């Protein structure tokens, strides 16, 4: 009985958080001089209005799914892998590099794509290990290390686009020369949606779920995350596990970046990561690191993103409104969680 009561109580608090977030956002919309209800309607329409909209939402869902899944591994080990953004970017860079290297070779295109995706994963993984090495051997907190590496990764993209990989003639913000269609991941007819990418995203999430819930490896990561000192004395090689968790997260982030190239943009563009790394951090925090909730919440977040594209056209509102909603939602949930703890102090 008591258990049930607690569950309802929790649900009540969570609903409260959503209401609070909506309230905050509505205030922002009102301040911008638009009717809130209309804005929400446009958001929904933008995300799900047409078949094309739905497909675009799913396209955006995949990288967020991958980034968040990867982050669950580093969070389990007690690490704040802010560098996930840079790891996505390095995934894109490595994939672009492999494609550029092999696009004129006689190898079958499918094989080239597979190599390019594996290359991208490796790139993300290595970039993550770099943040891990900085932490374990250099004493650099992973938050600062990751932040620094993110800046380097972004600069590297710009340098590649305007330098060594520039389009014939003059470099442009629109990115590198697009790859021939044979090197695109096949998409559903008439849509930008690749069924392969979606499958990879879902497989990744399932793998992470079982890794963290059911394996010795996952439990050891959790031990390292909760108390590295005791974990070490219980015989777990602590720093090796930390590096490994960075590498795993980097693999998933790299896969996200890689798919952005082979399935979505077919070239390297300056903002290739589209902020999915940071968004992934928010999703992970919002769901309190529970793998079970990654898929729905990530979907909700990208729906907001895609839906907001509609706003400037329909209501002359900036599309950054989706960011406001996401941000206030995370803050509202964290605040309400804090209040709940205070009220039910144990």
């Amino acid at each position, binding site marked *: 009985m008591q258990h049930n009561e607690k569950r309802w109580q929790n649900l009540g608090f969570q609903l409260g958080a959503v209401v609070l977030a909506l309230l905050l956002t509505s205030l922002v919309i009102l301040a911008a001089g638009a009717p809130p209800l209309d804005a929400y309607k446009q958001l929904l329409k933008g995300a799900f209005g047409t078949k094309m909209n739905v497909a675009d939402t799913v396209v955006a869902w995949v990288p967020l799914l991958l980034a968040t899944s990867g982050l669950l591994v580093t969070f389990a080990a007690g690490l704040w892998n802010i560098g996930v953004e840079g790891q996505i970017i390095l995934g894109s860079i490595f994939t672009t590099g492999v494609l550029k290297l092999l696009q004129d070779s006689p190898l079958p295109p499918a094989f080239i794509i597979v190599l390019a995706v594996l290359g991208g994963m490796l790139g993300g993984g290595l970039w993550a290990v770099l943040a891990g090495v900085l932490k374990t051997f250099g004493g650099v907190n992973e938050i600062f290390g990751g932040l620094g590496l993110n800046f380097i990764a972004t600069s590297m993209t710009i340098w590649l686009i305007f330098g060594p990989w520039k389009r014939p003639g003059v470099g442009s913000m629109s990115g590198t020369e697009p790859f021939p269609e044979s090197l695109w991941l096949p998409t559903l007819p008439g849509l930008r949606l690749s069924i392969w990418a979606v499958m990879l995203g879902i497989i990744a999430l399932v793998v992470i779920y079982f890794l963290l819930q059911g394996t010795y490896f996952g*439990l050891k990561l*959790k031990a390292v995350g*909760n108390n590295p*000192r*005791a*974990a070490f004395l*219980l*015989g777990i*090689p602590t720093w090796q596990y930390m590096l490994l968790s960075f590498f795993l997260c980097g693999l998933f982030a790299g896969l996200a970046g890689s798919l952005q190239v082979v399935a979505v943009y077919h070239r390297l563009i300056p903002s290739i990561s589209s902020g999915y790394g940071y968004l992934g951090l928010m999703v992970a925090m919002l769901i309190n690191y529970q793998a079970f909730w990654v898929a729905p919440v990530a979907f909700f977040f990208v729906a907001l993103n895609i839906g907001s594209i509609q706003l400037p056209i329909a209501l002359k509102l900036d599309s950054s409104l989706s960011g406001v909603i996401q941000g206030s939602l995370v803050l509202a949930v964290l605040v309400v969680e804090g209040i709940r703890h205070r009220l039910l102090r*144990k």
Partner: protein
Amino acid sequence: MEIEFRNINKTFGTVRANIGIHFSIPAGTIQGILGENGAGKSTLMKILSGYILPDSGEIYLDGELAKIENPADAIRYGIGMLHQDPLDFPPMKALDNFMIGKPGSLFPARREAERAFLELRDQFGFTVDPNSYVDSMTVGERQQLEILRLLWLGVRVFILDEPTTGISAQQKEKLFLTLRRLADNGNTVVFVSHKLEDVEALCDRVVVLRRGELAGQMTPPYDTDRLIEMMFGKVIKLDERLPCSATDQLVLRLQNVAIDDYRLQIRNVNLEVRCGEVIGLAGMEGSGQELLLRACAGLVRTVGGRVIVNGKDLTGKDTHSFMRHGVTFMPASRLEEGLIPGLSINEHFILTGEQKGVFIKRDKAKSYSQNKISEYSIRGFPESRVEALSGGNQQRTLLALLKEELSLILLEHPTRGLDIESTIYIWSKLKERCAKGAAILFISPDLEEILQYSDRVIVFFSGRVSPPLDATLTNVDQLGQLIGGKGWEEIFEKEQVGVSNAAQ
């Protein structure tokens, strides 16, 4: 002030810490709260002083319902608590600590505070210097500082949680005099302890808690056997000395080991430890015994000499290599170094147990944990998180986690904060290990414990390491002198490790 507890209940996770506690404390008395570890004493006191809220129940002060929701409320009602570990701010001066928590203006009146400090101090005959830094003070002096601070805040109910842990006999006597005076001045003193002799010497009345429930009350003259029965539910006597099960086979050999620390140097330690042997390391805290013990586990780097385990030279190797050779180390700080908060008992057993394949077999693990829990009589369930267990049960869990095949067990304060029953139990388990061939090295501040359970004793004094003494041929007085640095020349005259090898 008269305090009345009415039907207090408190649950942590699956552990019921207080069950329907109901009694009252008259004003101007010293009330003892007696109970073994995990009996719910600290919980009840934390409720009274506002650190935690009860699930249900009320507290009445002088017959009126009190709403105590945080420590500041408690202070306002005149209730103050001295914690087991004094909650002060070490790098600050005594006077600053004294002033913290005093409501008032933005700019505190230092001079006035100092005058009040000195006045109260002299009134009680304390010796604390307002300008000394807290980290240079003894536990006893910190207690004095806390008492002064609470007095200045206008506190009339003083709660002391295990105040006689870590202070000398002299300081204890002084503390008791102070508490007596506080009570004579009309204050109420609540004295929480698991030490029978302290409670009997000091308290006007006693309540006993057992497993979260009120087991009984008593006023002098105290019937010790009856009190013990209330505490444990049965009468317990200290065991006979357990026989030594040492064999001739060597487990550990230290050859000319040297260790450097920023505070002290240890030089030329030579030691041979045989299978089945128990060696107690005695000394004031920070005399070098912690360093040597950790060096035997590969946790502290040696700067000279060799550490040989089971015939294998492990000098300079990391602690995981030591573990592979059958060495295990149990730290004193259970929740900081020993166990992993956030993980359940079951998950701890999975981590330390045999791991076959990739996936965890939860059902098998759970029945294994269930067996261990009943074998070691841990009060908890496989799903209980370790931080929800009491100190004694955390210690039992740590012990239960030890692998089957061990040749050397290194223990820091194995029974710190545990009651007699738990202590006896834990040592009986450890001696079982010895009978199976493991050797034990342990540190304890309790000389009685060292004499009771060791076969040989090594004494430490600011980096000096004595040759092993036969535990049956020495006594508390001698050990007490040695750990204070007295009598080394007479006792170890002809030995190789004497004054000449000492550091500095």
